[in-house]
Protein backbone atom coordinates (compact mmCIF):
# COMPACT_ATOMS: atom_id res chain seq x y z
CA UNK A 1 0.00 0.00 0.00
CA UNK A 2 1.85 3.00 -1.23
CA UNK A 3 2.06 6.21 0.71
CA UNK A 4 0.62 8.03 -2.27
CA UNK A 5 -2.51 5.91 -2.25
CA UNK A 6 -3.07 6.54 1.42
CA UNK A 7 -2.45 10.25 1.05
CA UNK A 8 -4.81 10.28 -1.92
CA UNK A 9 -7.47 8.55 0.16
CA UNK A 10 -6.97 10.97 3.02
CA UNK A 11 -7.34 14.02 0.84
CA UNK A 12 -10.35 12.82 -1.08
CA UNK A 13 -11.86 11.66 2.19
CA UNK A 14 -11.41 15.05 3.78
CA UNK A 15 -12.85 16.81 0.78
CA UNK A 16 -15.88 14.55 0.77
CA UNK A 17 -16.06 15.02 4.51
CA UNK A 18 -16.49 18.74 4.04
CA UNK A 19 -19.61 18.06 2.04
CA UNK A 20 -20.94 15.69 4.69
CA UNK A 21 -20.23 18.40 7.21
CA UNK A 22 -22.12 21.05 5.30
CA UNK A 23 -25.11 18.75 4.85
CA UNK A 24 -24.96 17.87 8.54
CA UNK A 25 -24.77 21.43 9.78
CA UNK A 26 -28.26 22.16 8.50
CA UNK A 27 -29.58 19.18 10.40
CA UNK A 28 -27.78 20.14 13.57
CA UNK A 29 -28.89 23.76 13.44
CA UNK A 30 -32.51 22.76 13.18
CA UNK A 31 -32.20 20.26 15.97
CA UNK A 32 -30.38 22.70 18.17
CA UNK A 33 -33.16 25.21 17.71
CA UNK A 34 -36.28 23.14 17.95
CA UNK A 35 -35.26 19.59 18.84
CA UNK A 36 -36.73 18.06 15.74
CA UNK A 37 -34.77 15.70 13.54
CA UNK A 38 -35.55 16.28 9.88
CA UNK A 39 -35.82 12.81 8.39
CA UNK A 40 -36.43 14.38 4.98
CA UNK A 41 -33.07 16.13 5.00
CA UNK A 42 -31.57 13.90 2.33
CA UNK A 43 -34.48 14.63 0.04
CA UNK A 44 -33.89 18.37 0.31
CA UNK A 45 -30.31 17.73 -0.77
CA UNK A 46 -31.59 15.70 -3.68
CA UNK A 47 -33.90 18.54 -4.66
CA UNK A 48 -31.00 20.97 -4.58
CA UNK A 49 -28.98 18.71 -6.83
CA UNK A 50 -31.85 18.38 -9.27
CA UNK A 51 -32.44 22.12 -9.26
CA UNK A 52 -28.82 22.70 -10.20
CA UNK A 53 -29.15 20.03 -12.85
CA UNK A 54 -32.26 21.53 -14.40
CA UNK A 55 -30.80 25.04 -14.33
CA UNK A 56 -27.98 23.58 -16.37
CA UNK A 57 -30.02 21.31 -18.65
CA UNK A 58 -32.79 23.77 -19.43
CA UNK A 59 -31.15 27.17 -19.08
CA UNK A 60 -27.56 26.31 -19.75
CA UNK A 61 -26.47 27.79 -16.43
CA UNK A 62 -23.35 26.28 -14.96
CA UNK A 63 -23.84 25.17 -11.36
CA UNK A 64 -21.41 27.80 -10.15
CA UNK A 65 -23.66 30.42 -11.71
CA UNK A 66 -26.93 28.93 -10.53
CA UNK A 67 -25.55 28.46 -7.00
CA UNK A 68 -27.09 31.61 -5.55
CA UNK A 69 -30.45 30.80 -7.15
CA UNK A 70 -30.51 27.29 -5.76
CA UNK A 71 -29.52 28.53 -2.34
CA UNK A 72 -32.33 31.06 -2.33
CA UNK A 73 -34.83 28.51 -3.60
CA UNK A 74 -33.80 26.02 -0.92
CA UNK A 75 -33.93 28.67 1.76
CA UNK A 76 -37.45 29.55 0.68
CA UNK A 77 -38.34 25.87 0.65
CA UNK A 78 -37.04 25.62 4.18
CA UNK A 79 -39.13 28.54 5.36
CA UNK A 80 -42.19 27.11 3.66
CA UNK A 81 -41.52 23.75 5.21
CA UNK A 82 -41.32 25.34 8.61
CA UNK A 83 -44.47 27.39 8.38
CA UNK A 84 -46.45 24.84 6.47
CA UNK A 85 -45.42 21.62 8.15
CA UNK A 86 -42.90 21.75 10.93
CA UNK A 87 -44.73 24.26 13.04
CA UNK A 88 -47.59 21.80 13.37
CA UNK A 89 -45.33 18.86 13.98
CA UNK A 90 -43.60 20.62 16.85
CA UNK A 91 -46.75 20.28 18.90
CA UNK A 92 -47.06 16.57 18.19
CA UNK A 93 -45.37 13.77 20.13
CA UNK A 94 -41.94 12.63 19.00
CA UNK A 95 -43.33 9.62 17.18
CA UNK A 96 -45.38 11.93 15.00
CA UNK A 97 -42.37 14.15 14.36
CA UNK A 98 -40.23 11.26 13.23
CA UNK A 99 -42.97 9.76 11.10
CA UNK A 100 -44.09 13.11 9.73
CA UNK A 101 -40.72 14.19 8.39
CA UNK A 102 -40.14 10.63 7.26
CA UNK A 103 -43.38 10.72 5.30
CA UNK A 104 -42.34 14.00 3.73
CA UNK A 105 -39.08 12.44 2.64
CA UNK A 106 -40.79 9.41 1.20
CA UNK A 107 -43.22 11.60 -0.74
CA UNK A 108 -40.46 13.86 -2.09
CA UNK A 109 -38.32 10.94 -3.16
CA UNK A 110 -41.22 9.22 -4.89
CA UNK A 111 -42.29 12.47 -6.53
CA UNK A 112 -38.78 12.96 -7.90
CA UNK A 113 -38.81 9.43 -9.21
CA UNK A 114 -42.19 10.02 -10.79
CA UNK A 115 -41.31 13.34 -12.38
CA UNK A 116 -37.74 12.69 -13.41
CA UNK A 117 -37.45 8.85 -13.57
CA UNK A 118 -34.85 6.93 -11.60
CA UNK A 119 -32.24 7.61 -14.28
CA UNK A 120 -28.86 8.87 -13.23
CA UNK A 121 -28.06 12.34 -14.48
CA UNK A 122 -24.84 14.27 -14.67
CA UNK A 123 -23.81 17.77 -15.52
CA UNK A 124 -21.55 16.85 -18.36
CA UNK A 125 -19.40 19.90 -18.93
CA UNK A 126 -19.25 21.99 -15.82
CA UNK A 127 -17.10 25.10 -15.79
CA UNK A 128 -14.79 23.48 -13.32
CA UNK A 129 -13.47 20.19 -14.59
CA UNK A 130 -10.36 18.17 -14.86
CA UNK A 131 -7.79 17.35 -12.28
CA UNK A 132 -5.13 19.15 -10.34
CA UNK A 133 -1.86 17.47 -9.60
CA UNK A 134 0.03 18.16 -6.39
CA UNK A 135 3.15 16.05 -6.25
CA UNK A 136 1.88 12.58 -7.10
CA UNK A 137 -1.62 13.25 -5.79
CA UNK A 138 -4.48 13.85 -8.17
CA UNK A 139 -7.43 15.85 -7.01
CA UNK A 140 -10.48 16.50 -9.12
CA UNK A 141 -10.97 20.23 -9.60
CA UNK A 142 -14.68 20.08 -8.82
CA UNK A 143 -13.96 18.29 -5.55
CA UNK A 144 -11.27 20.78 -4.65
CA UNK A 145 -13.41 23.80 -5.40
CA UNK A 146 -16.35 22.19 -3.61
CA UNK A 147 -14.17 21.71 -0.57
CA UNK A 148 -13.20 25.34 -0.71
CA UNK A 149 -16.79 26.48 -1.03
CA UNK A 150 -17.80 24.29 1.91
CA UNK A 151 -15.04 25.73 4.09
CA UNK A 152 -16.03 29.24 3.11
CA UNK A 153 -19.65 28.45 3.93
CA UNK A 154 -18.65 27.19 7.35
CA UNK A 155 -16.61 30.30 7.96
CA UNK A 156 -19.50 32.49 6.90
CA UNK A 157 -21.92 30.54 9.06
CA UNK A 158 -19.62 30.70 12.05
CA UNK A 159 -19.17 34.43 11.62
CA UNK A 160 -22.91 34.91 11.29
CA UNK A 161 -23.79 32.89 14.35
CA UNK A 162 -21.13 34.36 16.60
CA UNK A 163 -20.71 37.92 15.37
CA UNK A 164 -24.05 39.19 14.23
CA UNK A 165 -26.98 40.11 16.41
CA UNK A 166 -29.36 37.82 14.54
CA UNK A 167 -26.91 34.99 14.79
CA UNK A 168 -26.60 35.46 18.52
CA UNK A 169 -30.37 35.50 18.64
CA UNK A 170 -30.27 32.07 17.04
CA UNK A 171 -27.89 30.83 19.68
CA UNK A 172 -30.03 32.29 22.44
CA UNK A 173 -33.17 30.63 21.10
CA UNK A 174 -31.31 27.34 20.83
CA UNK A 175 -30.16 27.50 24.42
CA UNK A 176 -33.35 28.67 26.05
CA UNK A 177 -36.16 29.79 23.83
CA UNK A 178 -38.36 31.07 26.60
CA UNK A 179 -35.66 33.28 28.04
CA UNK A 180 -34.80 34.49 24.56
CA UNK A 181 -38.44 35.29 23.83
CA UNK A 182 -38.72 37.25 27.05
CA UNK A 183 -35.75 39.29 25.89
CA UNK A 184 -37.50 40.15 22.67
CA UNK A 185 -36.06 37.53 20.34
CA UNK A 186 -38.98 36.25 18.24
CA UNK A 187 -38.97 32.46 18.48
CA UNK A 188 -40.99 31.78 15.33
CA UNK A 189 -38.74 33.97 13.24
CA UNK A 190 -35.65 32.33 14.63
CA UNK A 191 -37.04 28.91 13.79
CA UNK A 192 -37.81 30.00 10.24
CA UNK A 193 -34.34 31.50 9.97
CA UNK A 194 -32.83 28.26 11.17
CA UNK A 195 -34.64 26.38 8.47
CA UNK A 196 -33.65 28.94 5.86
CA UNK A 197 -29.99 28.71 6.78
CA UNK A 198 -30.03 24.96 7.16
CA UNK A 199 -31.60 24.47 3.78
CA UNK A 200 -29.36 27.12 2.30
CA UNK A 201 -26.36 25.06 3.35
CA UNK A 202 -27.96 22.03 1.77
CA UNK A 203 -28.45 24.12 -1.35
CA UNK A 204 -24.77 24.92 -1.49
CA UNK A 205 -23.78 21.32 -0.90
CA UNK A 206 -26.21 20.06 -3.51
CA UNK A 207 -25.17 22.50 -6.19
CA UNK A 208 -21.50 21.81 -5.69
CA UNK A 209 -22.16 18.07 -5.66
CA UNK A 210 -23.89 18.33 -9.00
CA UNK A 211 -20.60 19.30 -10.61
CA UNK A 212 -19.15 15.84 -10.08
CA UNK A 213 -21.68 13.49 -8.51
CA UNK A 214 -24.47 11.46 -10.06
CA UNK A 215 -27.90 12.96 -9.63
CA UNK A 216 -30.85 10.62 -9.05
CA UNK A 217 -33.91 10.48 -6.80
CA UNK A 218 -32.39 8.19 -4.18
CA UNK A 219 -29.12 10.10 -3.94
CA UNK A 220 -30.13 11.84 -0.75
CA UNK A 221 -30.59 8.72 1.36
CA UNK A 222 -26.98 7.84 1.86
CA UNK A 223 -25.94 11.44 2.42
CA UNK A 224 -28.69 11.77 4.98
CA UNK A 225 -27.55 8.68 6.85
CA UNK A 226 -24.01 9.99 6.96
CA UNK A 227 -25.29 13.37 8.01
CA UNK A 228 -27.14 11.76 10.93
CA UNK A 229 -23.93 10.07 11.95
CA UNK A 230 -22.08 13.37 11.68
CA UNK A 231 -24.65 15.16 13.79
CA UNK A 232 -24.62 12.50 16.49
CA UNK A 233 -20.86 12.29 16.39
CA UNK A 234 -20.35 16.03 16.52
CA UNK A 235 -23.09 16.63 19.00
CA UNK A 236 -26.65 17.62 18.28
CA UNK A 237 -26.67 21.38 17.93
CA UNK A 238 -22.96 21.99 17.50
CA UNK A 239 -21.69 23.66 14.32
CA UNK A 240 -18.05 23.01 15.03
CA UNK A 241 -19.00 19.46 15.90
CA UNK A 242 -20.60 18.93 12.51
CA UNK A 243 -17.47 20.13 10.75
CA UNK A 244 -15.11 17.91 12.68
CA UNK A 245 -17.45 14.95 12.59
CA UNK A 246 -18.03 15.34 8.87
CA UNK A 247 -14.30 15.39 8.24
CA UNK A 248 -13.82 12.36 10.44
CA UNK A 249 -16.52 10.44 8.65
CA UNK A 250 -15.16 11.32 5.25
CA UNK A 251 -11.75 10.19 6.39
CA UNK A 252 -12.97 6.95 7.93
CA UNK A 253 -15.06 6.15 4.91
CA UNK A 254 -12.25 6.80 2.48
CA UNK A 255 -9.52 5.01 4.40
CA UNK A 256 -11.84 2.19 5.33
CA UNK A 257 -12.73 1.71 1.70
CA UNK A 258 -9.06 1.62 0.81
CA UNK A 259 -7.75 -0.63 3.56
CA UNK A 260 -10.77 -2.94 3.76
CA UNK A 261 -13.42 -3.92 1.27
CA UNK A 262 -14.91 -0.80 -0.39
CA UNK A 263 -18.39 -2.23 0.02
CA UNK A 264 -17.90 -2.31 3.79
CA UNK A 265 -17.02 1.33 4.13
CA UNK A 266 -20.55 2.26 5.11
CA UNK A 267 -20.50 -0.46 7.75
CA UNK A 268 -17.43 1.12 9.29
CA UNK A 269 -19.10 4.48 9.47
CA UNK A 270 -22.10 2.92 11.14
CA UNK A 271 -19.90 1.14 13.63
CA UNK A 272 -18.41 4.54 14.36
CA UNK A 273 -21.85 5.96 15.04
CA UNK A 274 -22.74 3.16 17.42
CA UNK A 275 -19.44 3.43 19.23
CA UNK A 276 -19.82 7.17 19.73
CA UNK A 277 -23.43 7.15 20.72
CA UNK A 278 -23.00 4.34 23.19
CA UNK A 279 -19.90 5.55 24.92
CA UNK A 280 -20.31 9.27 24.57
CA UNK A 281 -23.97 10.01 23.92
CA UNK A 282 -23.48 13.72 23.68
CA UNK A 283 -20.97 13.39 20.87
CA UNK A 284 -17.85 15.48 20.62
CA UNK A 285 -19.35 18.84 21.50
CA UNK A 286 -22.94 18.06 22.31
CA UNK A 287 -24.75 19.86 25.08
CA UNK A 288 -26.34 17.14 27.12
Amino acid at each position, binding site marked *: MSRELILQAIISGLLMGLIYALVAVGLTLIFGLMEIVNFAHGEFLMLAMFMAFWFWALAGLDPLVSLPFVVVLLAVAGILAHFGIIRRLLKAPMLAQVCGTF*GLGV*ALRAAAQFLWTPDFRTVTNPAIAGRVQIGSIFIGQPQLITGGVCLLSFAALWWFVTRTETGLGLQATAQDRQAAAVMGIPTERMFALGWAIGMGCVGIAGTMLSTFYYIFPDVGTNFALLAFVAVALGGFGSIAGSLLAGLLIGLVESLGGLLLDPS*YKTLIVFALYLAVVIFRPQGLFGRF
Partner: protein
Amino acid sequence: MLKSALAENLWPRPPLWVGAFGAAALALLLAYPFIFTTPFAHHLMILILLYALMAQSWNVVAGFSGQISLGQAIFFGIGAYSSTVLFAKYGITPWAGLMVGMLLSALAAVAIGVPTLRLRGHYFAIATLLIGSSVQIVFQRWDWVGAASGLYVPIERASPWFYLQFHTSKVPYYYLALGAVAAGYFAVWKLRRSRLGFRLQAMRDDPDAAASLGIAIARHKVLAFMISAAMMSVAGTFYAQYVLVLDPERLFSAEISIIVLLMTVLGGSGTLWGPALGAAILVPLSEYSRIWFGGTGRTIDLILYGILILLVCMWRPSGILSLLEERIRRRAEIP
Protein backbone atom coordinates in the same frame (compact mmCIF):
# COMPACT_ATOMS: atom_id res chain seq x y z
CA MET B 1 -68.93 5.29 45.03
CA LEU B 2 -66.07 2.93 45.69
CA LYS B 3 -68.37 -0.05 46.06
CA SER B 4 -70.06 0.58 42.73
CA ALA B 5 -66.74 1.23 41.04
CA LEU B 6 -65.37 -2.03 42.35
CA ALA B 7 -68.38 -3.84 41.05
CA GLU B 8 -67.95 -2.53 37.52
CA ASN B 9 -66.57 -4.65 34.76
CA LEU B 10 -62.83 -4.78 34.61
CA TRP B 11 -62.80 -3.29 31.16
CA PRO B 12 -65.36 -1.09 29.44
CA ARG B 13 -67.73 -3.04 27.23
CA PRO B 14 -67.59 -1.96 23.60
CA PRO B 15 -70.96 -0.86 22.25
CA LEU B 16 -73.19 -3.42 20.61
CA TRP B 17 -72.57 -2.30 17.08
CA VAL B 18 -68.85 -2.92 17.44
CA GLY B 19 -69.56 -6.51 18.37
CA ALA B 20 -71.89 -6.91 15.42
CA PHE B 21 -69.38 -5.32 13.09
CA GLY B 22 -66.67 -7.62 14.40
CA ALA B 23 -68.77 -10.72 13.85
CA ALA B 24 -69.62 -9.67 10.31
CA ALA B 25 -65.99 -8.91 9.56
CA LEU B 26 -64.93 -12.27 10.91
CA ALA B 27 -67.50 -14.08 8.79
CA LEU B 28 -66.36 -12.15 5.74
CA LEU B 29 -62.72 -12.97 6.38
CA LEU B 30 -63.43 -16.66 6.81
CA ALA B 31 -65.49 -16.87 3.64
CA TYR B 32 -63.41 -14.40 1.60
CA PRO B 33 -61.62 -16.81 -0.76
CA PHE B 34 -64.94 -18.26 -1.78
CA ILE B 35 -66.65 -14.93 -2.28
CA PHE B 36 -63.83 -13.39 -4.25
CA THR B 37 -62.36 -16.17 -6.30
CA THR B 38 -59.74 -14.58 -8.55
CA PRO B 39 -56.06 -15.20 -7.79
CA PHE B 40 -55.55 -11.46 -7.65
CA ALA B 41 -58.22 -11.07 -4.98
CA HIS B 42 -56.53 -13.80 -2.98
CA HIS B 43 -53.11 -12.24 -3.47
CA LEU B 44 -54.38 -8.84 -2.39
CA MET B 45 -55.89 -10.15 0.82
CA ILE B 46 -52.83 -12.25 1.59
CA LEU B 47 -50.69 -9.13 1.29
CA ILE B 48 -53.05 -7.16 3.49
CA LEU B 49 -52.92 -9.89 6.14
CA LEU B 50 -49.16 -10.15 5.91
CA TYR B 51 -48.69 -6.42 6.31
CA ALA B 52 -51.28 -6.33 9.07
CA LEU B 53 -49.07 -8.74 10.99
CA MET B 54 -45.90 -6.80 10.24
CA ALA B 55 -47.46 -3.50 11.15
CA GLN B 56 -48.67 -5.00 14.44
CA SER B 57 -45.10 -6.02 15.15
CA TRP B 58 -44.01 -2.40 14.86
CA ASN B 59 -47.00 -1.43 16.96
CA VAL B 60 -45.76 -3.63 19.80
CA VAL B 61 -42.33 -2.04 20.00
CA ALA B 62 -43.31 1.51 19.08
CA GLY B 63 -47.05 2.02 19.56
CA PHE B 64 -47.25 0.22 22.88
CA SER B 65 -43.70 0.53 24.15
CA GLY B 66 -42.53 3.82 22.68
CA GLN B 67 -39.37 2.66 20.94
CA ILE B 68 -39.31 3.95 17.40
CA SER B 69 -37.62 1.23 15.41
CA LEU B 70 -36.84 1.98 11.78
CA GLY B 71 -35.23 -1.38 11.19
CA GLN B 72 -37.97 -3.99 11.47
CA ALA B 73 -36.96 -5.33 8.07
CA ILE B 74 -33.95 -6.89 9.80
CA PHE B 75 -36.16 -9.46 11.48
CA PHE B 76 -38.27 -9.96 8.41
CA GLY B 77 -35.17 -10.92 6.53
CA ILE B 78 -33.85 -13.13 9.32
CA GLY B 79 -37.14 -15.01 9.40
CA ALA B 80 -37.15 -15.49 5.65
CA TYR B 81 -33.51 -16.56 5.47
CA SER B 82 -33.64 -18.86 8.50
CA SER B 83 -36.40 -21.06 7.23
CA THR B 84 -35.11 -21.02 3.67
CA VAL B 85 -31.50 -21.84 4.50
CA LEU B 86 -32.57 -24.67 6.81
CA PHE B 87 -34.83 -26.06 4.14
CA ALA B 88 -32.64 -25.53 1.10
CA LYS B 89 -29.44 -26.81 2.71
CA TYR B 90 -30.65 -29.33 5.28
CA GLY B 91 -34.14 -30.29 4.18
CA ILE B 92 -35.71 -29.14 7.42
CA THR B 93 -39.40 -28.37 7.21
CA PRO B 94 -40.25 -24.68 7.15
CA TRP B 95 -42.44 -25.18 10.21
CA ALA B 96 -39.32 -25.82 12.21
CA GLY B 97 -37.60 -23.10 10.26
CA LEU B 98 -40.33 -20.79 11.43
CA MET B 99 -39.46 -21.51 15.05
CA VAL B 100 -35.75 -21.16 14.44
CA GLY B 101 -36.36 -17.87 12.67
CA MET B 102 -38.31 -16.56 15.61
CA LEU B 103 -35.58 -17.60 17.99
CA LEU B 104 -32.83 -16.07 15.90
CA SER B 105 -34.79 -12.87 15.48
CA ALA B 106 -35.37 -12.64 19.20
CA LEU B 107 -31.67 -13.14 19.78
CA ALA B 108 -30.87 -10.50 17.18
CA ALA B 109 -33.25 -8.17 18.96
CA VAL B 110 -31.33 -8.70 22.18
CA ALA B 111 -27.99 -8.20 20.45
CA ILE B 112 -29.14 -5.02 18.77
CA GLY B 113 -31.35 -3.82 21.56
CA VAL B 114 -29.10 -4.04 24.58
CA PRO B 115 -26.57 -1.49 23.34
CA THR B 116 -29.00 0.72 21.43
CA LEU B 117 -32.21 0.82 23.43
CA ARG B 118 -30.62 2.90 26.12
CA LEU B 119 -30.35 5.68 23.55
CA ARG B 120 -32.88 8.44 23.44
CA GLY B 121 -35.66 8.35 20.86
CA HIS B 122 -34.05 9.93 17.81
CA TYR B 123 -30.68 8.28 18.39
CA PHE B 124 -32.29 4.87 18.66
CA ALA B 125 -34.33 5.43 15.50
CA ILE B 126 -31.23 6.40 13.56
CA ALA B 127 -29.29 3.49 15.02
CA THR B 128 -31.93 1.05 13.77
CA LEU B 129 -31.82 2.69 10.35
CA LEU B 130 -28.08 2.22 10.18
CA ILE B 131 -28.12 -1.32 11.51
CA GLY B 132 -30.83 -2.22 9.03
CA SER B 133 -28.72 -0.86 6.22
CA SER B 134 -25.67 -2.69 7.55
CA VAL B 135 -27.47 -6.02 7.81
CA GLN B 136 -28.61 -5.60 4.23
CA ILE B 137 -25.06 -5.03 3.11
CA VAL B 138 -23.83 -8.05 5.06
CA PHE B 139 -26.40 -10.36 3.52
CA GLN B 140 -25.64 -8.99 0.08
CA ARG B 141 -22.00 -10.06 0.51
CA TRP B 142 -22.50 -13.31 2.40
CA ASP B 143 -21.87 -16.13 -0.03
CA TRP B 144 -23.26 -18.89 2.13
CA VAL B 145 -26.74 -17.42 1.82
CA GLY B 146 -26.39 -16.55 -1.81
CA ALA B 147 -25.02 -13.05 -1.46
CA ALA B 148 -26.66 -10.51 -3.76
CA SER B 149 -28.29 -13.13 -5.94
CA GLY B 150 -30.28 -14.35 -3.00
CA LEU B 151 -31.75 -17.78 -2.52
CA TYR B 152 -34.44 -19.88 -4.09
CA VAL B 153 -36.72 -22.00 -1.98
CA PRO B 154 -36.49 -25.48 -3.55
CA ILE B 155 -39.78 -26.36 -5.21
CA GLU B 156 -41.60 -29.34 -3.78
CA ARG B 157 -44.92 -30.26 -5.28
CA ALA B 158 -45.64 -33.16 -2.99
CA SER B 159 -46.77 -32.79 0.66
CA PRO B 160 -47.65 -29.11 0.45
CA TRP B 161 -48.41 -28.83 4.15
CA PHE B 162 -45.09 -30.30 5.18
CA TYR B 163 -43.12 -28.15 2.79
CA LEU B 164 -45.44 -25.20 3.23
CA GLN B 165 -45.68 -24.58 -0.49
CA PHE B 166 -48.91 -24.56 -2.42
CA HIS B 167 -48.76 -24.51 -6.17
CA THR B 168 -52.31 -25.11 -7.31
CA SER B 169 -54.07 -22.39 -5.40
CA LYS B 170 -53.40 -19.48 -3.11
CA VAL B 171 -56.24 -20.35 -0.79
CA PRO B 172 -54.15 -22.34 1.70
CA TYR B 173 -51.75 -19.39 1.89
CA TYR B 174 -54.72 -17.20 2.67
CA TYR B 175 -55.84 -19.29 5.61
CA LEU B 176 -52.30 -19.62 6.89
CA ALA B 177 -51.92 -15.87 6.78
CA LEU B 178 -55.29 -15.46 8.46
CA GLY B 179 -54.22 -17.90 11.14
CA ALA B 180 -50.94 -16.08 11.73
CA VAL B 181 -52.70 -12.74 11.96
CA ALA B 182 -55.31 -14.18 14.31
CA ALA B 183 -52.60 -15.59 16.56
CA GLY B 184 -50.59 -12.40 16.50
CA TYR B 185 -53.52 -10.11 17.16
CA PHE B 186 -54.84 -12.36 19.88
CA ALA B 187 -51.45 -12.19 21.56
CA VAL B 188 -51.44 -8.42 21.38
CA TRP B 189 -55.03 -8.28 22.59
CA LYS B 190 -53.98 -10.23 25.66
CA LEU B 191 -50.82 -8.22 26.04
CA ARG B 192 -52.56 -4.88 25.94
CA ARG B 193 -54.40 -5.42 29.20
CA SER B 194 -51.89 -7.52 31.03
CA ARG B 195 -49.38 -6.62 33.67
CA LEU B 196 -46.62 -6.55 31.07
CA GLY B 197 -48.73 -4.57 28.67
CA PHE B 198 -49.53 -1.84 31.18
CA ARG B 199 -45.92 -1.62 32.20
CA LEU B 200 -44.85 -1.24 28.57
CA GLN B 201 -47.40 1.48 27.97
CA ALA B 202 -46.36 3.22 31.16
CA MET B 203 -42.78 3.07 29.94
CA ARG B 204 -43.89 4.59 26.67
CA ASP B 205 -45.74 7.45 28.29
CA ASP B 206 -43.14 8.34 30.89
CA PRO B 207 -40.05 6.21 31.47
CA ASP B 208 -39.01 8.06 34.62
CA ALA B 209 -42.36 7.69 36.34
CA ALA B 210 -42.46 4.08 35.21
CA ALA B 211 -39.07 3.43 36.73
CA SER B 212 -40.10 5.01 40.00
CA LEU B 213 -42.99 2.54 40.07
CA GLY B 214 -40.68 -0.43 39.95
CA ILE B 215 -40.47 -1.08 36.20
CA ALA B 216 -37.04 -2.13 34.97
CA ILE B 217 -36.89 0.03 31.88
CA ALA B 218 -33.98 -1.46 29.98
CA ARG B 219 -35.29 -4.97 30.41
CA HIS B 220 -38.77 -4.05 29.27
CA LYS B 221 -37.51 -2.24 26.19
CA VAL B 222 -35.56 -5.29 25.11
CA LEU B 223 -38.52 -7.55 25.82
CA ALA B 224 -40.83 -5.45 23.64
CA PHE B 225 -38.21 -5.49 20.92
CA MET B 226 -37.92 -9.27 21.13
CA ILE B 227 -41.67 -9.83 20.86
CA SER B 228 -41.89 -7.50 17.91
CA ALA B 229 -38.90 -9.19 16.26
CA ALA B 230 -40.49 -12.63 16.61
CA MET B 231 -43.72 -11.43 15.00
CA MET B 232 -41.82 -9.87 12.12
CA SER B 233 -39.88 -13.09 11.68
CA VAL B 234 -43.07 -15.12 11.29
CA ALA B 235 -44.10 -12.77 8.51
CA GLY B 236 -40.70 -13.22 6.91
CA THR B 237 -40.89 -16.99 6.90
CA PHE B 238 -44.38 -16.86 5.49
CA TYR B 239 -43.30 -14.46 2.78
CA ALA B 240 -40.40 -16.70 1.79
CA GLN B 241 -42.72 -19.65 1.42
CA TYR B 242 -45.18 -17.53 -0.52
CA VAL B 243 -42.89 -15.99 -3.13
CA LEU B 244 -40.28 -18.77 -3.02
CA VAL B 245 -37.51 -16.33 -3.90
CA LEU B 246 -35.29 -14.42 -1.47
CA ASP B 247 -33.74 -11.18 -2.59
CA PRO B 248 -31.74 -9.38 0.13
CA GLU B 249 -32.33 -6.05 -1.57
CA ARG B 250 -36.05 -6.40 -1.07
CA LEU B 251 -36.15 -8.36 2.17
CA PHE B 252 -33.97 -6.02 4.19
CA SER B 253 -35.10 -2.89 2.44
CA ALA B 254 -35.76 0.26 4.35
CA GLU B 255 -39.02 0.38 2.45
CA ILE B 256 -40.43 -2.48 4.49
CA SER B 257 -39.30 -0.87 7.72
CA ILE B 258 -40.92 2.37 6.65
CA ILE B 259 -44.17 0.92 5.40
CA VAL B 260 -45.01 -0.96 8.59
CA LEU B 261 -44.47 2.30 10.43
CA LEU B 262 -46.66 4.26 8.03
CA MET B 263 -49.47 1.74 8.26
CA THR B 264 -49.58 1.73 12.02
CA VAL B 265 -49.35 5.48 12.41
CA LEU B 266 -52.10 5.95 9.86
CA GLY B 267 -54.42 3.44 11.44
CA GLY B 268 -53.66 4.36 15.01
CA SER B 269 -50.46 3.66 16.86
CA GLY B 270 -50.99 2.03 20.22
CA THR B 271 -54.38 0.61 19.35
CA LEU B 272 -55.14 -3.03 18.66
CA TRP B 273 -56.68 -2.61 15.22
CA GLY B 274 -54.75 0.41 14.01
CA PRO B 275 -52.14 -1.66 12.16
CA ALA B 276 -54.81 -3.72 10.43
CA LEU B 277 -56.68 -0.60 9.40
CA GLY B 278 -53.52 0.96 8.04
CA ALA B 279 -52.70 -2.18 6.10
CA ALA B 280 -56.22 -2.41 4.75
CA ILE B 281 -55.91 1.13 3.40
CA LEU B 282 -52.36 1.24 2.16
CA VAL B 283 -52.00 -2.18 0.52
CA PRO B 284 -54.92 -1.78 -1.89
CA LEU B 285 -53.78 1.79 -2.52
CA SER B 286 -50.41 0.45 -3.51
CA GLU B 287 -51.66 -2.43 -5.60
CA TYR B 288 -54.30 -0.46 -7.45
CA SER B 289 -52.08 2.48 -8.18
CA ARG B 290 -49.69 0.03 -9.76
CA ILE B 291 -52.54 -1.27 -11.90
CA TRP B 292 -53.90 2.11 -12.89
CA PHE B 293 -50.65 3.93 -13.41
CA GLY B 294 -48.62 1.04 -14.73
CA GLY B 295 -44.91 1.05 -14.07
CA THR B 296 -44.94 4.42 -12.39
CA GLY B 297 -47.54 3.07 -9.97
CA ARG B 298 -44.77 2.09 -7.63
CA THR B 299 -43.99 5.76 -7.08
CA ILE B 300 -47.52 7.13 -7.06
CA ASP B 301 -48.47 4.98 -4.10
CA LEU B 302 -45.38 6.12 -2.24
CA ILE B 303 -46.20 9.74 -2.95
CA LEU B 304 -49.68 9.15 -1.60
CA TYR B 305 -48.36 7.20 1.41
CA GLY B 306 -45.91 9.92 2.24
CA ILE B 307 -48.41 12.74 1.98
CA LEU B 308 -51.02 10.76 3.89
CA ILE B 309 -48.63 10.09 6.74
CA LEU B 310 -47.50 13.66 6.82
CA LEU B 311 -51.09 14.86 7.02
CA VAL B 312 -51.96 12.33 9.72
CA CYS B 313 -48.94 13.34 11.77
CA MET B 314 -49.74 16.99 11.40
CA TRP B 315 -53.38 16.79 12.26
CA ARG B 316 -54.18 13.50 13.89
CA PRO B 317 -50.97 11.94 15.19
CA SER B 318 -52.90 9.34 17.11
CA GLY B 319 -54.22 7.90 13.86
CA ILE B 320 -57.60 7.27 12.33
CA LEU B 321 -58.84 4.90 15.01
CA SER B 322 -58.47 7.48 17.72
CA LEU B 323 -61.11 9.56 15.96
CA LEU B 324 -63.45 6.62 16.16
CA GLU B 325 -62.55 5.84 19.73
CA GLU B 326 -63.34 9.35 20.81
CA ARG B 327 -66.72 9.26 19.13
CA ILE B 328 -67.53 6.03 20.91
CA ARG B 329 -66.47 7.31 24.27
CA ARG B 330 -68.33 10.53 23.90
CA ARG B 331 -71.49 8.61 23.05
CA ALA B 332 -71.04 6.24 25.98
CA GLU B 333 -70.83 9.22 28.34
CA ILE B 334 -68.05 7.81 30.45
CA PRO B 335 -68.78 8.76 34.08
